[in-house]
């Protein structure tokens, strides 16, 4: 600065005298790791011999997944009466679990699409795994409404396909909107995930030593050559898919909330539902991303690529969305009081102090109180604690859906038709098993596909800038 030759007109004179400090920016990749290190690290996960922990976890996950199989087999062979659904509660765990799993998926799309549009470079390290989480979570979610239709072999009637009755789906129903929203969401998320993975699959193909590995990854990589003419189209398509996924993800949970909000039930019929559901979805999804990524980071020693900066950011998003969810709980109460509607008022007082008060207070303490701990740097740096808080958030968000679904149905307009809902062992088996099903898919992903988007991580390193020298 001191020996700047001449004062140019567009440069304020004061800058030469004060010697401004370089503002420190958090590093995305620690220890100045190079391109080759990133390739080795990510491909190494796929190339190493199957580790023991993977085999053990995979076996346990398969065993847990079999509970869903058993639950569904019993349900289909016996009838939907085996679930705990009785009048007046026709929507029990099945819908709770559906909304829970779909919500978890939303963080993946937030990271891959919305943070891409906002040019948040830190997203690259967690992007791929979060998108995989989205797809597998939506698969888990899909199981529940599919079997909730009762006669699952007629579930295809939900789609606009000609059937022997000559009738068509009724497009005024939010449940039918949901069919379109969730299936579109699953399809677009899968396309986005796969397209982003093609260059990385090419990188694994180029390093493959054995015949079968070469063949497997060659087929998946579709002959990707990484020429800039290809990258040019690729980057444009990536940006467009991010732009399409953003309104999509917001619409999906909006439509999920319409399943409730379009009805006339007190506690459901509110206009706050769409934004409230979307905030809750992102909240629970980020908690799940951290629940998955913290152990993987430790196992594969990814500390340079997923560092404290990434964890801080995710914790702060959980804090922000958790606070929004808490604000939404308060708003619901205020609007109920302000509405002058006796049923609406009762629905909310009943949520907090009625027969399901235990569930309500689990929800409030997990969703509103625990994330507030993320205000403290010390807590964000204690990864064991972060992981535990994220588990609390997952539990809390499941209870939120339980509270919304069940309390409103159990005590609606007529006290003579009130009831109390409890799940049966079949409900519990089916839900418990989905965690196994999810883990099986996620473990297969970790083992066989590139866990981190190598090309994108390389792109955000300082040495990737062609004007660096």
């Amino acid at each position, binding site marked *: 600065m001191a020996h700047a030759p001449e004062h140019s007109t567009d440069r304020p004179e004061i800058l030469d005298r004060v010697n401004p400090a370089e503002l420190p920016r958090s590093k995305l990749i620690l220890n100045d790791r190079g*391109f*080759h290190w990133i*390739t080795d690290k990510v491909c190494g996960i796929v190339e190493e011999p199957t580790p023991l922990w993977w085999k053990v976890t995979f076996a346990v996950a398969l065993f847990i997944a079999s509970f869903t199989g058993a639950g569904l087999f019993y349900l289909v062979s016996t009838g939907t009466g085996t679930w705990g659904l009785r009048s007046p509660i026709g929507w029990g765990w099945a819908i709770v679990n559906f909304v829970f799993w779909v919500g978890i998926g939303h963080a993946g799309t937030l990271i891959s699409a919305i943070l891409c549009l906002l040019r948040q470079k830190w997203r690259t390290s967690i992007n791929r795994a979060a998108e995989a989480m989205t797809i597998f979570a939506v698969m888990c979610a899909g199981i529940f409404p599919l079997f909730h239709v009762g006669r699952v072999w007629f579930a295809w009637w939900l789609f*606009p396909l000609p059937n022997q009755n*000559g*009738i*068509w*789906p*009724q*497009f*005024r129903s*939010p449940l039918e*909107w949901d069919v*379109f*929203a969730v299936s*579109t969401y699953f399809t*677009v998320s899968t*396309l*986005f995930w796969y*397209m982003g993975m093609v*260059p990385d699959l*090419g*990188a694994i*193909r*180029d*390093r493959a030593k054995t015949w079968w590995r070469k063949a497997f990854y060659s*087929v998946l990589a*579709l*002959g*990707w*050559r*990484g*020429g*800039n*003419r*290809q*990258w*040019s*189209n*690729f980057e*444009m*398509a990536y940006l*467009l*898919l991010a732009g*399409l*996924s953003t309104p*999509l993800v917001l*619409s999906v949970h909006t*439509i999920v909330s*319409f399943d409730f909000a379009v009805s006339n039930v007190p506690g459901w019929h509110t206009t706050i539902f769409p934004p409230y559901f979307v905030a809750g979805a992102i909240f629970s999804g980020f908690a799940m991303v951290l629940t998955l990524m913290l152990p993987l980071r430790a196992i594969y020693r990814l500390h340079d690529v997923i560092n404290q900066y990434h964890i801080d950011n995710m914790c702060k998003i959980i804090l922000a969305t958790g606070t929004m969810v808490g604000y939404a709980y308060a708003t619901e109460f205020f609007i109920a009081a302000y509405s002058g509607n006796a049923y609406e008022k009762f629905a909310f007082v009943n949520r907090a102090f009625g027969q399901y008060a235990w569930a309500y207070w689990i929800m409030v303490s997990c969703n509103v109180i625990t994330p507030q701990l993320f205000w403290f740097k010390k807590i964000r740096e204690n990864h064991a604690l972060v992981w535990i808080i994220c588990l609390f958030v997952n539990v809390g968000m499941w209870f939120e859906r339980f509270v919304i679904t069940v309390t409103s149905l159990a005590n609606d307009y007529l006290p003579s038709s009130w009831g109390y809902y409890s799940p049966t062992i079949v409900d519990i088996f089916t839900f418990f098993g989905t965690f196994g099903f999810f883990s099986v898919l996620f473990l297969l992903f970790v083992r066989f596909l590139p866990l981190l988007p*190598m090309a*994108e991580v*390389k*792109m955000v390193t300082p*040495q*990737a*800038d*062609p*004007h660096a*020298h």
Partner: protein
Amino acid sequence: MNERNESIHGVACTFRSPSDVFHAAEKVRDAGWKIWDVHTPFPIHGMDQAMGLPRSKVPRLTLLGGVTGFITGCLLTWYMNSYDYPLVVGGKPFWSPIFPFPIMYECTILFAAFGTFFGQFILNRLPRHHHPLFDLPQFARTSDDTFMIVLEARDKNFHLDESRNFLLSLGGQEITVIRE
């Protein structure tokens, strides 16, 4: 193009860093080359301009997909709930653009995404599992940490020895002839 070029796909040259290959690409562009490419492990910022590439055509296919999707959503709901099997729900009109809007919205996004996804692969001429470049041992490293400029024999500027020297003058590392 002369006789002996027929079995030759082109000349490849590796570079060590993004800035090396970036400045080399600018010189290739300025020399008037049209059929050539820069192979990199990740998209380099500004390389499209350095190569003189026009804007990608993927957005046109996205738009095509989106418009198709919107029309599909309209026709689907109109045909099913109003034309083929008119459904009386609450005495409301059989079809209006309001109630099936979520369907139209989702169809628009779905088809636009198809347009983008398949459009990208069609414009990139993929899948293509065999390419002369795959026979090149150095090429495997371009998905890791190596950068490569390939001048193709189909370009009118191509002449084996001259092109080789041209690449050397750009600061290239390893020069290889790619055979078909």
